[in-house]
């Protein structure tokens, strides 16, 4: 049984079939990628997995549990975290608070215990401090120290992407969904990201599933690649297999129908 899989996932918006019968398997502790031209349904797939959309057909199975009928916060509680293509940070919070929100499921402070935060040994203070320690480790790991107390809306886009990655890591997920993690990053940042993704996989034991347009990054770090086009899976396999797949080449570069005319 696969660690994570989707089976025959379909969803359509009006007449548009955004996903048609998409089945993917993800092995535990691997890095897999989903690629495809714009509008292929990659982000829609992520939205289905994280519970924002409800698939009309098919199943999503995570650790032998059906999750396709659960609301997003329950899916997060099972250990699936994600980032967004266009960065969905809490713009008016500092980096620290954004990451602390990632600890939401681990914090036990309620309304009343929170309201009575009057000394450093109160329940809420101890709860906060313990989780701040964990967040601090993530800040060190992603080298976000300089941004620690900045409002995220004031940070450059590349840094915002890092903060978002950090927020997802703060959830201590088992499966991490990354939607174009290196969009808007410069070459140096991309190199860093590649190393971090490897570390996330090897040291934290987190399984990564990423959508990415940067082929050099995809080909270098992913073990398996799934290619979507017009909502359908057209190929899957290792980077080598994908690079030589005629259907993939056609999807990206266009077919040779012009030669026939």
């Amino acid at each position, binding site marked *: 049984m696969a660690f994570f899989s989707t089976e025959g996932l379909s969803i359509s918006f009006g007449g548009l079939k955004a996903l048609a019968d998409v089945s993917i398997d993800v092995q535990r502790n691997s890095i897999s990628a989903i690629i495809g031209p714009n509008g292929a349904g990659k982000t829609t797939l992520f939205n289905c997995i994280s519970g924002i959309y409800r698939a009309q057909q098919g199943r999503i199975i995570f650790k032998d549990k059906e999750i396709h009928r659960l609301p997003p*916060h329950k899916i*997060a509680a099972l250990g699936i975290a994600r980032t967004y293509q266009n960065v969905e940070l*809490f713009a008016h919070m500092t980096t620290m608070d954004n990451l602390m929100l990632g600890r939401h499921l681990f914090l036990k402070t309620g309304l009343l215990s*929170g309201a009575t935060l009057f000394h*450093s040994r109160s329940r809420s203070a101890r709860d906060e*401090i313990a989780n701040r320690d964990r967040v601090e480790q993530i800040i060190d790991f992603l080298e976000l120290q300089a941004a620690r107390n900045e409002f995220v809306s004031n940070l450059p886009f590349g840094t915002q992407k890092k903060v978002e990655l950090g927020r997802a890591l703060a959830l201590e997920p088992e499966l991490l969904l990354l939607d174009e993690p290196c969009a808007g990053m410069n070459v140096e940042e991309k190199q860093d990201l590649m190393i971090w993704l490897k570390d996330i996989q090897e040291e934290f034991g987190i399984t990564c599933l990423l959508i990415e347009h940067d082929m050099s990054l995809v080909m270098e770090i992913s073990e398996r690649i799934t290619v979507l086009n017009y909502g359908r899976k057209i190929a899957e396999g290792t980077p080598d297999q994908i690079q030589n797949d005629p259907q993939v080449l056609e999807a990206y570069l266009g077919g040779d129908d012009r030669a026939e005319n």
Partner: protein
Amino acid sequence: MDMKRSHYEDIRLFSSRVVFAWFLVFAGVLVSYPFAASWLGKNYYIYMANYMAINVIVAVGLNLLVGYAGQISLGHAGFFGIGAYGTVLLMTKLQVPFVLALPLAGLAAAGFGFLLGLPALRLEGPYLAVATLGFGLTVTQIIGRWDLFGGRQGLHAPPLALGPVTLAGDFNLYWLIVPTAVVMTMAARNITKTKVGRAFVAIRDSDVAAHTMGVNLTYYKTLAFAVSAFYTGVAGGLYAFALGFIEPQTFNLMLSILFLSMVVVGGLGSIFGSVVGAMLLSLLNLKLASVHTLPFLGPVLLQLSESWFTVSGLPNFQYIVYGLIMFLIIVFEPLGIFGFWIRTKIYWKSYPF
């Protein structure tokens, strides 16, 4: 600049000794104020302070909902009314002692807040504004037409007994109302620094991201309404005694708008701003109500009002001035007094550059 040595310094109530010292000064002023006022023979000043403190509670509670959780409410006069009538009725009809009646009325308001939070799960912006507006108007209509609530005639507040002591008069009430306001403001500030407050802001900034990070939107949105309604309900209960008499017309739409303007003028998403905004607008409200006593301007305005405006007379000017203030704040200082405060602080920190 001193260095921070522990995470607790980030979240504690008084972020530095300077802030704590200022708090002590402020507390000293609060304690000596009623003595000074009664020494001067100005009992009215104590009533003003009570009125301000009540509005501070409402503004802080409303800011949790509007400024932090990003929901809108034009129906808070309804919660205020539920708190006021709830406290009085619990005491007169069921003989519940005040110390229980006030929190119970607050909880009743919170219950209605929860119910009003349910449509908020589906509605946003102007739609939610209309839904909450409907709620506020409904409450006014119901309490105005039901005999239990005294109908149009209103209700008199019963004598306020705290154990063996009976609190009567503005001076005595001050020691109930102002400490309540201080404690509730501190509690609100602590809420904003911990899990619940962070979840509120997360919902405001990006509810989709909050949801996928494990924040239960249903729970936290309704909680925001309930907490905000609780604050307003408690303030309403205190208001019944500060005024000594309640009638349905008090809890009208203009009151909801006044509450909202306190939050906006103070600064959305700032507890400190809410306190200042509430104090400032309460003061303005009381002053504008007696604008006709001004030496020269008063008679002119009265004349103007009588010849050009509706029969409601002078309150017209109150509303015009409010409208003007809101307008100027939105245009020139969208962050309200809090934004002005931040800019001043930055200016002096970096002076002379």
